[in-house]
């Protein structure tokens, strides 16, 4: 049986495609080194257009207006440039209200595209540009630690990681955030207060990595300019031991936080990348693997939600205390206890 994989790796090769959602312009070259917050491509995702009624402006019916149009598709115009006219004794004209590009002119109208701030696609990880995908994006590669999460507010950041979570069960409150943390990426446990997110934005932090979060905080987190990501899920959940150990041992290192939302259709998932030199030949880990004995697994649902263990055996169909009958798996935890769980409730950790 195949199971999804959550990557929590101390050192691996990380290769990511960074793509624009529409065609745009690539602003880096192959072989270039980039940092997580560098812009690698741009596109006009929020275009601004003006549709001018030339007929009305000139006081003519549409069929008589076109002969007075003074621009054509593709022309760049400055504010004040004449687009149509002059017409009549009053020498009526229609002028461009802003600097723009003519998209189409005719039928008594002209459509202008106004320059708008383009969307900037960030690298999201520090590394080297390995490949260019024409008009769409780049492939970036690096080596280092990789810790994947489950939720992010879309922000991207890079900075020194400070660990407030001294235990996996840590709870973050506003009073724990000090001014001296400004500019850093904070690792913490559970957050249930909107004020924490607001304070993170006021300092500001460069990123906030949480073990878990109350769903009531989502609206504020989504609006925050600080990249916020959640490792485990919603409700009070301790950080899983694999992520806790890996992240806390890397305190005071520079980390990249890519808090892009988990999108199964593009493959993007919120993740923390800690650039580290590779000790030798490291390979990319696969995103799906066979559930087999010996694999390290993570339990997604109660009654052992958030626990990490080793798969002892993939069993047959079993009826669970809920009464639901499903394929089962026997897992041994670090404390030596064992539990039978639905195989569908497992992720492989690798």
């Amino acid at each position, binding site marked *: 049986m195949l199971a999804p994989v959550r990557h929590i790796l101390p050192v691996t090769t990380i290769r990511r495609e960074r793509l624009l959602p529409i065609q745009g312009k690539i602003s880096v070259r192959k072989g270039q080194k980039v940092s997580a917050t560098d812009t690698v491509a741009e596109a006009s995702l929020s275009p601004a257009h003006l*549709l001018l009624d030339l007929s009305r402006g000139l006081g003519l019916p549409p069929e008589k207006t076109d002969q007075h149009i003074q621009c054509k598709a593709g022309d760049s115009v400055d504010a004040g440039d004449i687009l149509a006219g002059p017409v009549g004794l009053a020498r009526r004209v229609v002028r461009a209200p802003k600097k723009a590009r003519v998209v189409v002119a005719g039928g008594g109208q002209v459509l202008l595209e106004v320059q708008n701030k383009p969307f900037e696609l960030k690298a999201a990880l520090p590394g080297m540009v390995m490949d260019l995908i024409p008009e769409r994006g780049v492939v970036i590669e690096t080596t280092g630690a990789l810790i994947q999460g489950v939720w992010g507010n879309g922000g991207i950041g890079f900075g020194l990681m400070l660990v407030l979570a001294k235990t996996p069960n840590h709870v973050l409150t506003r009073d724990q955030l000090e001014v001296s943390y400004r500019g850093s990426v904070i690792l913490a446990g559970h957050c249930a207060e909107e004020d924490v997110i607001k304070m993170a934005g006021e300092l500001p932090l460069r990123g906030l990595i949480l073990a878990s979060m109350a769903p009531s905080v989502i609206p504020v987190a989504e609006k925050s300019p600080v990249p916020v990501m959640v490792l485990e899920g919603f409700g009070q959940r301790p950080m899983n031991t694999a992520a806790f150990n890996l992240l806390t041992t890397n305190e005071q290192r520079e980390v990249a936080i890519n808090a892009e939302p988990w999108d199964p259709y593009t493959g993007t998932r919120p993740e923390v990348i800690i650039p580290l030199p590779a000790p030798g030949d490291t390979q990319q880990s696969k995103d799906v693997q066979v559930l087999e004995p010996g694999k390290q697994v993570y339990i997604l649902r109660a009654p052992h939600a958030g626990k990490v263990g080793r798969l002892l055996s993939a069993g047959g169909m079993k009826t669970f*205390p809920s009464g639901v009958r499903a394929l089962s798996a026997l897992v041994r935890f670090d404390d030596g206890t064992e539990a039978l769980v639905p195989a569908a409730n497992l992720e492989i950790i690798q």
Partner: protein
Amino acid sequence: MLVIDVGAVSTRAMLFDVVDGRYRFLAVGSAPSTDAAPFYDVGEGVQRAIENLQEITGRVIIDENERLIIPATRDGRGVDTFAATISAGPPLKVVAVGLLEDVSLESTRRLAKTTYTGVIETISLNDRRKSDARIDSILRLRPDLILVAGGTDGGASQSVLKLLEAVGLACYLTADEQKPEVIYAGNQELTEEVRSSLTGFASLHFAPNIRPTLEMENLDAAQTVVAEASARVRARQIAGVRNLDEWAGGGLLPTASAFGRLIRFLSRAYDSPKGVLGVDVGASATTIAAAFHGDLTLGVYPEYGLGRGLPGLLEDARLEEIAQWLPQNVPLEDIHDYIYNKSLFPGTLPATKEELAIEQALARQVMRCGLRRAAGGFPASVSRRGLLPPMEPILASGSVLTHAPTLGSCLMMMLDGLQPVGVTTMVLDQNHLAAALGAAAAINPILSVQVLDSSTFVYLGTVISPVGNARPGTPILRLRMVQSNGNETTIDIKYGTLEAIPLPLGQSARVHLQPFHRFDVGMGGPGRSGSLVVHGGALGVVIDARGRPLRMPKDVGRRQEAMQKWLWTLGG
């Protein structure tokens, strides 16, 4: 015949063939769906599901080159016909365009909800924005589908064409590979002008006017055009879908459309004054399909699916409304957490009693919300304020129902979620075949009819739900049941109770109903008595006298006691 369904969580391969001269459902193979990461190709899941089916049946269906063997060979390999349905994929982004907010735009929104969509923007005359702002909005949102309606036939024209101006220019400015599908279903007299203004700028399709007069809404034909457009969008979005559509001879259907097709077929076949209701509570969406005299009302609500879209339920239901269905005291925060965690991991299962209770409470609530939305499209002649119109049969599908620990708990969810009135029969699509039979009907209608007639669906039983008001404990109905073997049972039903009288499958009985206090049991009006023949089912004859609309006890202790008692009545 082989039918493949690609769901959000599972891909299933269903095999049908002739046994003893009649079509029968033989077996199903399944595998996790692979539309999303890390495969991004439905073909992988389809392959594994077929391989699973081959292991179960011992029948070879795909050859060494992983191609479907069609038609079947003399030595029994392959299949003669193939159909496919799909519900996997993110909801399609739709821009709805109509003239008036509460006329054509409302109908356009309902048309959008006949498949897996989210309406991300609306444009109408009431919209104060100028054309350029509308253009920019469409460009920013990058919709998959633009639905345009407006103007009765022979009615408004200039206003419709003005609305189309922004659509046309936005499509002109969109890169070829991202151009949306545009469906025009407005004033038919404008067809040629619409064609000349949009051809070349968008993938343009036409459907009959969904609002031919102010009083009439007709979504039927347009629904089919929308279903075909959504299949085309999926083929562009997800690898492997085009191949699946080719195997199906271009007939790939959204699962909900195929499900609706079956419900419509049943409505025509039964030819009854009652409607036929189908409910599918899936991971992608909750689908409500109601047909009256062969006219289908279809509502597909991804925001009510028990998967990635589940947080959308909270736009229409408070946590307290969900909590009312729980037999124990669960903090509202826990329900909130559950909803968001389930949306992160849609393929996971409830292993504890507490989590199962929350999941089943959510199933009830999504059915309530889905019915509330769908009821807006029911014919005015059958609409009853706050109550479901008389329906028979009621067919239910979806893993939360079919994998319920007991049939009794499944029927409880259906009764609480749907709250039928009068007399109805409840049927469970145990093998998730309803959509497959709807898809098969286009190719081999006899197969669909014969499989429906077989015992593939679980007949849960007849449910009698009196409607009226009384104090709890008041006798409101006398029921006398005379079985075919002569056994007679008489029982007085009290208001507020749930009762079940055993009547096994294969047996029938005549039931005489005598309501008191002007309760309506569906015999022609309040207080009217009558008799009918009922057939045996897994849970017999169930009398749900808990009231309509159902009001659950607010006190947690009383609610727990009541729910346990009701469940025990239905066999646990």
